[in-house]
């Protein structure tokens, strides 16, 4: 399947001759429990980031903050099929992906608040969430910079003859970086166990992909002979099914894979950027929210399949809102890092020679 490029028109999940909800679950081999779990997860991400947006608005969170709202299926659908010993590495729009891989939402929120109980003790912030113990490898701010890291993580898997895989996310704009080109070639020549995923939300900040790219995203692995597929990234069931299958292909020694995961950003590029404007119309955004919200789509399927009703939905929603409240309270209560932390973690290792700043401080 992944051997051949298959293009999907966006929204075809709801296209003509629409299959029933039950049929969709069936088709993607997703059982009821899992389906409900995916809904629960995506709701959690949505509520978490809505809460973060409010916290940002009142200054509890600072700096650049990029939310994933609208793209939640790219976290739940692409990461939930993975094993604990699989790796994930991504860019700066990663709150939800960290949570999906197992980082405690409390630790993520505390990091956004810049507190010591944050995943990086408040030193990393929104763009640099890490979870070493659950193999969530960050959280990187240089566009394309994480792609060679993904190749390196895959290199380690192959080197140690493990049967895990790494999923390396990037945005559509990242494929025009040299780092992407070099890493893809390395992954191909060494047949590394990596799934390179472009979260193709069509825009890099205010620039539409087509304006700055000679070909479609899905064509970008041709030069490396890496099998590519396009996936409807708003359909969490399809996304889940595809990644479940891809992970097994790669685990089995199938070499790297390339995924054009078609999605859409419902918010501005970051908290400080407009949702729409010169680069995309308010109508376009509304239409996409209307017809392409991954949570609404799954809800519809579950209602249709009779697995869930409004009450059940509200129950789940209440539950995740509770978790988000908890995370926010936890973050609020967590202490700010003390001044001594400024100079901690610069070096992993004690220096035999003296650090320069020791002297500088001593002098003050």
């Amino acid at each position, binding site marked *: 399947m992944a051997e051949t490029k298959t293009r999907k028109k966006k929204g075809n999940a709801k296209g003509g001759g629409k299959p029933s909800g039950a049929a969709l679950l069936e088709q993607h081999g997703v059982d009821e429990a899992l389906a409900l779990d995916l809904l629960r997860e995506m709701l959690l991400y949505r509520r978490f980031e809505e809460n973060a947006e409010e916290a940002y608005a009142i200054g509890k969170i*600072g*700096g*650049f903050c990029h939310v994933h709202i609208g793209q939640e299926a790219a976290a739940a659908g692409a990461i939930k099929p993975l094993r604990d010993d699989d790796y994930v590495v991504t860019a700066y729009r990663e709150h939800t992906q960290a949570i999906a891989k197992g980082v405690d939402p409390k630790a993520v929120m505390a*990091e956004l608040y*810049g*507190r010591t109980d944050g995943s*990086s003790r*408040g*030193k*990393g*912030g*929104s*763009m*640099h969430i890490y979870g070493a113990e659950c193999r969530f490898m960050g959280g*990187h*701010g*240089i*566009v*394309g910079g994480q792609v060679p890291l993904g190749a390196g993580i895959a290199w380690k898997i192959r080197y140690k003859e493990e049967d895990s895989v790494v999923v390396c996310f990037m945005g559509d*704009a*990242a494929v*025009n*970086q*040299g*780092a992407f080109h070099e890493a893809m070639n390395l992954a191909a020549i060494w047949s590394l166990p990596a799934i390179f995923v472009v979260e193709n939300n069509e825009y*890099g*900040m*205010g*620039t539409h992909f087509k*304006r*700055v*790219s000679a070909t479609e995203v899905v064509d970008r692995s041709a030069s490396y002979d890496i099998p590519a597929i396009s996936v409807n990234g708003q359909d969490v069931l399809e996304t889940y099914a595809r990644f479940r299958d891809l992970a097994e292909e790669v685990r089995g020694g199938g070499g790297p894979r390339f995924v054009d995961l078609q999605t859409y950003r419902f918010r501005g590029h970051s908290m400080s950027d407009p949702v729409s404007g*010169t*680069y995309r119309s308010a109508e376009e955004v509304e239409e996409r929210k209307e017809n392409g919200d991954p949570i609404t789509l799954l809800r519809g399927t579950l209602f249709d399949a009779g697995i869930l009703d409004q009450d059940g939905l509200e129950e789940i929603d209440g539950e995740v809102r509770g978790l988000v409240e908890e995370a926010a309270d936890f973050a609020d209560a967590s202490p*700010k*890092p003390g*001044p001594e*932390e*400024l*100079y901690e973690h*610069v070096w992993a290792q004690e220096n035999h020679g003296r*650090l*320069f*700043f020791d002297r*500088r401080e001593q002098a*003050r």
Partner: protein
Amino acid sequence: MAVMTYREALNEALAEEMERDPDIFLMGEEVAEYEGAYKVTKGLLDTFGDRRVVDSPISELGFAGLGVGAAMAGLRPVIEFMTFNFAFLAIDQVINGASKMHYMSAGQFPMPIVFRGPTGAALQLSAQHSQACETYYTHAPGCKVVTPGTAADAKGLLKASIRDDDPVAFMEGELLYNLKGEVPDDDDFVIPLGVADLKREGSDVSIITHGKMVHVALQAAATLEKDGIEADVLDLRTIRPLDVDAILDTVAKTNRAVYVEEGWPYAGTGAQITTLIQEEAFDHLDAPLLRVSQADVPMPYAKNLENLAKPSADRVVDACNRVLYR
């Protein structure tokens, strides 16, 4: 004198120069339709069209190199880096390409190109987005480095940089864009590169600085004044080439100096200035030269830690008191 923001001053400089010379074009990420990530290029697409104001893909190495090639062929590119943090990806084209071309070709290829964008920390942008990158460009010969701290300097120096036949790393400050200041009205206001500006006069101690830190220095000077200490505040404005005379003059006058810089201390521009002074004005020094800089750590995200890491007026006052042995 018109009062305008640093952002507007840069925008005027770009518009005036592009108006003057059709060979100048502007290229970078989000510079056209989005009018710049920080809106410095507002309106330029409308005025000059998409032939001269060009949105690039996220390909720093590629479009920086495209600029170098275009400059070799006779155009005068202005390449915007959304921030200089991302220019590490392009530095090979700046150092190995632009900065050496004139020398390697023995004068056949001047390099009239400007690489511009914000440098240094803004607010809580964390380690990968909060770097003062000046020293990466001053170290190698061939590239000029310009760091305006006020609206007037921003306009006059950008116009000079665009007219210069050498590559210029023109480093702005994200936190300066909204800063208002007076800018001379004359319709061709150009400030020559390599001329420092005494932003404040005093005879007790010299505070030498560049870029955004000129404001921290002036704040410190105001505090010192209350203590009866008068500081010279020398804004280098261009840190490559250097206005050596201005530096030696203020030191000869006060015999004590503090360098304030936003970047890291280790082998930074401040180290260069300090070394220059002690090599060439050793006998004028009554006290060691001190530096105030970013703490020698990657920039942390947490606001309280970030504030500790950044150079502050208090720390400058402190350093001045120390060189005054008070």
